[in-house]
């Protein structure tokens, strides 16, 4: 009888072990550093989706419950390299993982900002930035090298423009609404508190949103997850700023369920690497978290980066040669013995977010974020009326304007005087102080004559102030092998765009009229007004003038993701559907377009969708294959939707949604001594739009051009591998081989800004031209040494090729006889080689952790590498060399030295 019972029990137990309903097992272990003497506290143990399974305690001990079966566990701890473990959870008893050794993170990677702020000289002054710093902490060697090493040369992964990646902070999408891309200076200086992030660079879903083709970065700012204690950092550099000091303080999770983390940073310099570039920035951050109970937690995060910085502009090779430096900056001049920069970027945009996490049940979670982002952004510039162009590198002031050699020499010699080679501020003040003027019918009052010093030169601030509400919620449900996620995203954005007089430069007032309209329609007092309801407006410092309009963009998105994972395979399918409304609201009646400038424009409503699918096949834990495919449409950005938003409500003719088709295949290996990835990808963009304005010399007027129907193909190979030669030495090799090609001749319409007359409608002959914005080939190889005595060093060599400039589409349209043969070919920049090195050491003294690292970039002082630039819009068919392109050169040797103290 007993035997029978045992048999039954055995059968029952066996049956149970095969049943679909798994039992929960218990997993535990201890996290330590090498030689077990230091226990790692506060490490987050997460599963593949990023859900936190446990936090390690002060003794390094962690434990959690999980359903039996295969599980991939990630160990994330500040200052340590992420560790991944594949385990088998037993359904009975405890699965004891024992001592797990974590390896110290090379801190130089995470403390370093990787961006070298690059500003384009386009008339609209859009900020363009290099690859972002969060990627440098990725554990994928390709991604971290792309950010840390290649990023110096404006490299973008897969050549994607920044707007094809999303960035979230505490669940709030922080991409700039009007241009679409994330602007990193908006949270500059807050590296310390942005460390905890999940990044993807492709289509693979993260489960928190429907990512665009470039992936997403998600910064987790839960106050309880920061390392308890104080960290102070001081850095010394010669890049865009010279000094940086940061302090971060976190209470860790207190017993009452609250946690507070704060950070304050300051970056400053009187002058950066390029002349005349000052930097003055404060960053602040506060996170407050309350773990209400095991099901609810709320995290409040507020941050702001307040900064002013002087910008370095690019110029032509002729100007660089005249100034004797490839870093000549035409934007500054001497005033009162110091350098005054005319182009200053400033920003003060507080971001306030509140995130709520609700564990509805063991396998269902709802995460929501609501936030408000508001504030001011500005970019100053000189403006002038009825006066000589004050820019020192204006083409008529350069030797190339003259045909006689003696004259050219004379002008070249005069450049030794900084009042010639740079802006002559005193001359601007003198001109203003000398311009006694009477304005008739000032402010629209007949007979009202205002007499005073009318400024001919001023500094204006081009403002873009924002006000954005966002709500974002995601529901995740796990059932069996499926994880189902659904999300709703709503964003309401209003931007305020206007110019403000920043400095009258010694004058008493400026008059708000359009000087180009004045030249073309001198007898029409209405046409010249920028604000027809207040004609001949007298404007003083701080007053709004020139234009004033709101940019509206509202978006609602729903998306869903289904993930199916088995032992060896996981598959996913994601969809999204979005509705975006874009429109302009003018606040002044522009004299040239009295019927088409005030009030709301036509509302562009676009419905876009996306589908992505793919999967992962794990041959073993060491050999993994991934495939992804994506078809989606994106709405155009606000900036490309309007022909000339400063003057009128006209939308860009022929504008469409963008369509993106992408796919990639990867092979990933995780061997004990080699980890690496090889990926082949292909992306096709159709229906892109580009809009720009420039000053046409012959017409002596502003002209808008809009290119629609742009098709591009980006494809290539990504390779990255780390070879652990010994316990201390690692060799990295990374290669990125790409082609970014325009595959169709787009349509271009050129309109005169003054009267919306269409000057030409043509085809742009640029098929098979290359995109600019990133080198197409980048290779690197490096070796790192990580000593058990807490010091480390490394050196990397990288090589770049296939760098192309932003081309001028107008010179590639047909003239009466055909097209301009001189510009048929695109100019390729020369290839270049860079060497970077780092060295660092850390000490532990009385419980205080001190570390000192030095990052030395461009050791060979290569000052010949052109990282970017653009062809001028001005061109002369009779004299093609008259308007050469403007280049940006890679900085020579530069360093970043970091001292951090942790208590």
């Amino acid at each position, binding site marked *: 009888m007993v035997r029978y019972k045992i048999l039954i029990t055995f059968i029952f137990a066996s049956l149970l072990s095969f049943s679909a309903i798994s039992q929960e097992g218990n997993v535990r272990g201890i996290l330590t550093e090498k030689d077990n003497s230091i226990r790692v506290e506060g490490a987050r143990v997460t599963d593949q989706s990023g859900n936190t399974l446990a936090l390690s305690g002060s003794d390094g001990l962690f434990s959690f419950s999980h359903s039996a079966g295969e599980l991939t566990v990630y160990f994330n701890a500040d200052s340590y390299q992420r560790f991944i473990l594949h385990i088998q959870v037993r359904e009975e008893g405890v699965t004891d993982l024992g001592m797990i050794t974590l390896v110290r993170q090379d801190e130089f990677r995470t403390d370093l900002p990787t961006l070298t702020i690059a500003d384009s000289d386009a008339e609209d002054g859009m900020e363009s930035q290099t690859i972002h710093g969060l990627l440098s902490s990725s554990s994928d060697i390709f991604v971290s090298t792309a950010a840390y090493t290649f990023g110096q040369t404006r490299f973008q992964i897969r050549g994607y423009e920044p707007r094809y990646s999303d960035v979230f902070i505490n669940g709030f999408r922080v991409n700039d609404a009007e241009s679409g891309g994330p602007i990193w200076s908006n949270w500059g200086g807050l590296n310390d508190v942005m460390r905890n992030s999940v990044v993807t660079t492709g289509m693979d879903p993260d489960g928190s949103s429907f990512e665009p083709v470039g992936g997403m970065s998600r910064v987790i700012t839960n106050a309880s997850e920061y390392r308890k204690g104080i960290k102070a950092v001081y850095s010394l550099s010669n890049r865009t700023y010279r000094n940086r000091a940061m302090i971060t*303080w976190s209470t860790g999770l207190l017993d009452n369920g609250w946690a507070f983390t704060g950070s304050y940073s300051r970056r400053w310099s009187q002058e950066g690497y390029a002349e005349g570039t000052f930097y003055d920035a404060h960053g602040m951050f506060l996170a407050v978290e309350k773990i209400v109970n095991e099901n609810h937690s709320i995290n409040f995060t507020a941050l702001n980066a307040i900064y002013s910085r002087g910008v370095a502009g690019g110029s032509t090779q002729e100007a660089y040669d005249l100034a004797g430096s490839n870093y000549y900056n035409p934007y500054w001049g001497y005033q009162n013995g110091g350098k005054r920069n005319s182009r200053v970027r400033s920003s003060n945009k507080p971001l306030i977010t509140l995130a709520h996490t609700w564990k509805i049940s063991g396998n269902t979670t709802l995460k929501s974020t609501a936030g408000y982002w508001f504030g001011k952004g500005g970019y100053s510039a000189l403006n002038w009326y009825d006066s000589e162009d004050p820019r020192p590198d204006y083409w008529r002031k350069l030797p190339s304007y003259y*045909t*006689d050699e003696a004259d050219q020499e004379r002008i070249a010699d005069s450049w030794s005087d900084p009042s010639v080679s740079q802006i002559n501020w005193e*001359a601007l003040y003198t001109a203003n102080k*000398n*311009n006694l*003027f009477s304005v008739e019918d000032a402010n629209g009052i007949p007979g009202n004559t205002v007499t005073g010093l009318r400024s001919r030169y001023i500094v204006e601030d081009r403002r873009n102030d924002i006000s954005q509400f966002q709500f974002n919620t995601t529901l995740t449900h796990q059932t069996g092998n499926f994880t189902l996620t659904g999300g709703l995203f709503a964003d309401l954005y209003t931007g305020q765009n206007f110019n403000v007089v920043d400095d009258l430069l010694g004058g008493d007032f400026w008059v708000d009229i359009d000087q180009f309209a004045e030249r073309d329609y001198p007898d029409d007092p209405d046409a010249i007004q920028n604000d027809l309801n207040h004609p001949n407006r007298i404007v003083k410092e701080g007053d709004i003038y020139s234009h004033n309009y709101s940019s509206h963009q509202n978006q609602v998105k729903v998306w869903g993701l289904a993930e199916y994972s088995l032992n060896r395979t996981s598959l996913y399918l994601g969809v999204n559907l979005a509705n975006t409304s874009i429109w302009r609201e003018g606040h002044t009646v522009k004299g040239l377009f009295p019927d088409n400038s005030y009030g709301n424009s036509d509302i562009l409503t676009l419905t876009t969708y996306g589908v992505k699918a793919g999967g992962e096949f794990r041959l073993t834990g060491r050999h993994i294959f991934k495939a992804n495919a994506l078809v989606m449409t994106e709405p155009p950005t606000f900036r490309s939707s309007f022909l000339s938003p400063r003057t009128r409500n006209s939308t860009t003719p022929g504008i469409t949604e963008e369509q993106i088709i992408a796919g990639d295949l990867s092979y990933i290996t995780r061997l004990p001594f080699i980890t690496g990835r090889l990926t082949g990808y292909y992306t096709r963009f159709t229906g892109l739009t580009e809009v720009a304005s420039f000053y046409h010399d012959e017409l002596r007027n502003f002209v808008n051009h809009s290119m629609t129907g742009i098709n591009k193909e980006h494809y290539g190979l990504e390779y990255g591998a780390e070879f652990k030669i010994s316990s201390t030495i690692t060799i990295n090799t990374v290669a990125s081989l790409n082609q970014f090609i325009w595959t169709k001749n787009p349509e271009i319409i050129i309109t005169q800004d003054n009267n919306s007359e269409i000057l030409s409608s043509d085809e742009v002959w640029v098929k098979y031209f290359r995109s600019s914005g990133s080198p197409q080939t980048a290779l690197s190889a490096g070796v790192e040494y990580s000593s058990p005595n807490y010091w480390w060093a490394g050196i990397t060599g990288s090589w770049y090729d296939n760098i192309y400039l932003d081309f001028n589409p107008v010179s590639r349209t047909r003239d009466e006889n055909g097209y301009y043969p001189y510009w048929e070919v695109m100019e390729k920049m020369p290839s270049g080689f860079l060497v970077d090195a780092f060295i660092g050491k850390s000490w532990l003294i009385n419980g205080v952790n001190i570390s000192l690292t030095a990052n030395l970039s461009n050791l060979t002082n290569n000052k010949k590498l052109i990282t970017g630039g653009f062809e001028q819009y001005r061109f002369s068919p009779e004299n093609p060399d008259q308007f050469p392109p403007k280049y940006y050169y890679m900085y020579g040797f530069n360093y970043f030295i970091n001292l951090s103290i942790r*208590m």
Partner: protein
Amino acid sequence: MNTIRYITIVTILASLIASGCVKRFDAEPELTPIDYGTIVDINQVKALYNDELAKIWYNRTPVEITEEWAITGIVTGSDKTDGNLYKEGYLEDASAGVLLKFAATGGFYLGDSVIIKMKGLWLGDYGDFVQIGGTPYTDDGGNLRISGFNKDERMVKVSIDNPSHPTPATINVVKNSSFQGRLVTLENVQFTQGDLGKTYADALSDPPAAANRYLEDCDGNKIIVRSSGYSTFADDLLPEGMGSFTAIVTRFNTDYQLLIRDIDEVQLDGERCMIGAQPLGDPVETLSEDFESFANNEEILIDGWQNLMIKGNRSWQNKIFNSDGYAQATGYNSGLTEMETWLITPPVIVSAAKTLTFRTAKAYWEHESGNHPFALVYSLDYNGSNFHSATWTSLSATVAVESTSDHTFVNSGNVALPIVTGEDAVIAFIYRGSGTESTSYRIDNINITTAK
């Protein structure tokens, strides 16, 4: 670590961090006032170039002004008004006016009273017209030219909205070097008959082109008015009246030219005067003219008569053939699109009946069918100058026509003049033709006698 220690450390560090300072250098600078030197007459400065002007043009070189001099005056020409000037301006004082070449437009407005430092500037000329500008440069033709100078660094504005005081003058008087660069007002001038119907300049070509037009006084003296194709009035038709014309006197080689600085100062709206119009003689009872007292090909000029060019630039000419003298008008070889000339008699008293006889002939008929080169009219209210407003009435007579043999005179028959008590009438013999309708027409033996 307890909370207080935390907070203390954090506060200290934060304040240390916040104290890093970045200077901005945007306070208004102290400006050194322009030391312009001693003020002298514009004439004195221009005189520095006299030696060069004496040389032949290709041997001249620009002269640098090294003296610590300055000039002052009222701005009489600005590139801001009406677009006729570009990167240049005119300044005038009591002694003279001068052309200044600037590096950029703007900041120099009509009515401004300014002082400009001369030292470091250069004197040059273009077509013998003196100008002051900046450092000379060589243009693509290899010629040495004066560049424009930066006015902001050497000019002081004393006052604005000063009225200008143009010098009253006449066409002949302004054609003198002392007037070069001065603002003048001419009275009783009009655009020549030949230029009526044209625009000031050629605004429609690509690029727009400047043009010369002719202004004349009532004595027939002419001067060129040159306007830029970029001016706001370039495409306006020339005004057809006579009146006052204010402009700046310039020069190009041997041609004196007028430059309009403000189109509102061109006020040509009065009645035109007749060029070559001598006064009509006193009224007579009879008259007789056989054209024997003139030389061949001489323009008919009879005391008391008028020989007017109404369209084109030809009038009745004296011709002698076979010892017979007669008046002839022809469009042949004139190149004119329209030719019209009137031979007008002195007034004849018509209180009593008067008879007019004359004879006409034609040669080389080229007029199209329906068009006749000759017409005969009279006027009771023409006084010698009111040509356009006088009433002209047709008179019929027998005259040479297309079918008449060439060179054969035809008697007019007796033409009865109207009888109006106390009035007198002028008779006009009109030729109308052109370079293509170039028929030659002759009149002879004009007699007005008392009717029998």
